């Protein structure tokens, strides 16, 4: 099956353009990231952090979490995370009130910057906890996101 991909030019700025190849299924060049089952199945953020060896994370102001104070729709909550802790190699996200709080870890290697944008589901108003890992140590920050339902289905 042939897929047509289109490149998108972002207007303005020093935009570079990427052309897309036809969609191909490639064999990954190296093993994909592991998936930490016990952390993902943990029912509390604390348990998940323990499973990931992050239980001792210390509070840090060098982690910036940009998320809505009140999310318009809990099904799609945009979160931007930036760590300014030198040597940050990964960022992990926990939505404390979700049934399974551990939402994921993003690994930065070979020069990718300690920044990620992700959109998550939040079932009810909840603290969103972030852990940044740098030099084998763990740092954490938290941001409260309110979720309202509201509306009559329009």
């Amino acid at each position: 099956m042939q897929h047509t991909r289109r490149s998108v030019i972002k207007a303005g700025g020093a935009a570079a353009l990427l052309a897309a190849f036809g969609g191909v299924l490639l064999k990954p060049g190296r093993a994909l990231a592991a998936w930490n089952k016990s952390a993902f199945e943990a029912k509390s953020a604390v348990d998940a952090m323990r499973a990931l060896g992050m239980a001792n994370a210390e509070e840090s102001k060098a982690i910036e979490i940009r998320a809505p104070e009140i999310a318009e729709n809990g099904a799609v909550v945009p979160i931007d995370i930036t760590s300014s802790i030198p040597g940050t190699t990964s960022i992990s996200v926990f939505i404390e009130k979700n049934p399974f709080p551990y939402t994921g870890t993003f690994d930065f290697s070979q020069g990718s910057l300690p920044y990620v944008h992700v959109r998550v589901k939040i079932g009810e108003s909840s603290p969103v906890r972030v852990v940044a890992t740098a030099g084998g140590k763990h740092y954490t920050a938290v941001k409260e996101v309110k979720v309202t339902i509201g509306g009559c289905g329009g």
Partner: protein
Amino acid sequence: MRLASAAILAAGAALLASCATPQRDYRPDALSMMKRDFHARGTAKMDRLDEDTVQAACNKYHDDPPQGVADKLQQEQLAGVKWPADGKLLGDWRSGEKIAQDGRGMAWNDKGGVGGSCYNCHQIGPRESSFGTVGPSLYQFAKKRGYGTDIQRYAYGKIYNAKAYSLCTQMPRFGHVGALTEQQMKDLAALLMDPASPVNE
């Protein structure tokens, strides 16, 4: 014969062209188009496209009927209000709050339960921040207007048939169309009128 009708048509066209300003009424076209294009679904049958006398007057006069027309129809609507047989106008405000929150009822996919959809359009209780503004705020309804029987009757009657009080209001006629039961309307009236209801804090 054919020629003659062509001539009449031409004359008609000329007449139309000469009086360009007064627009023709598109309502008959609109209605026949809708009757052709819609179909019944669930409880929403095709007769819902037919205007009743109130709807017809509001449609005809763009929601601003002459006083005489409005008065007459409002009186008719008011005469149709079925007041509770036991004479009690107020029920339980707690269940009224639940009914006010419930937006179900009369849509083609609705099965069973019918609510009042009240918060869709009105501010009511102080602890619900998700409320609409199509209708006026009802917060402190009785505290502002008084708790007397007249106001109770107005509250119940307005819920039963809002058109009895203001012919072309956007508020549905919950009792008149059989959407809400007598008990539900009593409970809603209590939500507005009961001194213990949070509405009257």
